[in-house]
């Protein structure tokens, strides 16, 4: 079965794409990966529609871990998870971790075949309890 997928959500598409480039360099194609950034008009912000689409692109039946930058990215990601079709919401989590370092740690863990819970825990080790 495919490894756990990673989604990177930033207010800035440049930040999201840059973080995704770094993840690709680390883990190649072993991990389903998608990113999005920018509000529905292309300015700084996030878009629930784009987050839902990114989750679909990075989909794995073993789950998807989302890394976010600031408040609105987190709130919009949680909303996007609730709006997923069917029972997919139970397999998607938002990690409480810095977006760049968290994405790299999560993807590295995922590339070894780790569970969604382990991927999330590894990313969240970066955040003080």
């Amino acid at each position: 079965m495919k490894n756990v997928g990673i989604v990177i959500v930033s207010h800035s598409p440049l930040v999201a794409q840059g973080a995704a480039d770094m993840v690709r360099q680390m883990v190649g194609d072993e991990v389903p990966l998608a990113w999005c950034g920018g509000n529905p008009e292309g300015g700084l912000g996030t878009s629930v529609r784009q987050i839902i689409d990114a989750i679909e692109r990075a989909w794995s039946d073993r789950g998807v871990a989302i890394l976010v930058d600031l408040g609105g990215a987190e709130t919009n990601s949680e909303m996007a998870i609730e709006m997923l079709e069917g029972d997919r919401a139970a397999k998607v989590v938002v990690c409480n971790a810095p977006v760049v370092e968290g994405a790299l740690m999560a993807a590295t863990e995922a590339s070894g075949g780790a569970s969604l819970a382990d991927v999330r825990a590894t990313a969240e080790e970066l955040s003080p309890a």
Partner: protein
Amino acid sequence: MSDEMLLRAAIAAVSNTIAAHADELSELDAAIGDGDHGANMKRGFDAVAAETDLIAGKPLPEALKAIGTKLVMTVGGASGPLYGTLFMALGKELAQAPDDRAGALRKAVDAVAARGKSTIGQKTMLDVLYPVADAVAAPRPIEEIVALAHASAEATRERLAIRGRASFLGERSIGHVDPGARSSALIVEAVAGVVR
């Protein structure tokens, strides 16, 4: 007034007041956040207003859910899911208990608090919505509810931000009205003007 006429009038009133105050909301946000609250809210409510015919033709609970979903999809900031949740939860509650509008409002505000992982007293829209929900339940006269909404928004000026980007400023968040509290008061006033 029928629900459809009420919805048409309320959508127009809310989208007009948000458009008229968009610059002010963004200026408030620029002081303690990222400066896009007015533009985000205007984008959201313009999108709702553009679908007035579609939305107002639905039964009230379905219409409220449609408004919430539209805001979630178009606002682009944290206020999208927060206001989206307010309207979606209001629709959901009214579908279950159509005669308890005050109870539905209270539960919808609770849903916003859960969405934002916040509570009253943290310099957010909840500082307006909770007092308003209580006043609607009491019930207090409409004029009094509108005055309370504006006074509650103004009272966020002296509070310390604990949630959202304003919390990064710590003590420096004191002295500025919360933009979400201000937009909530504007929406309350617009809706009150219609149901009066």
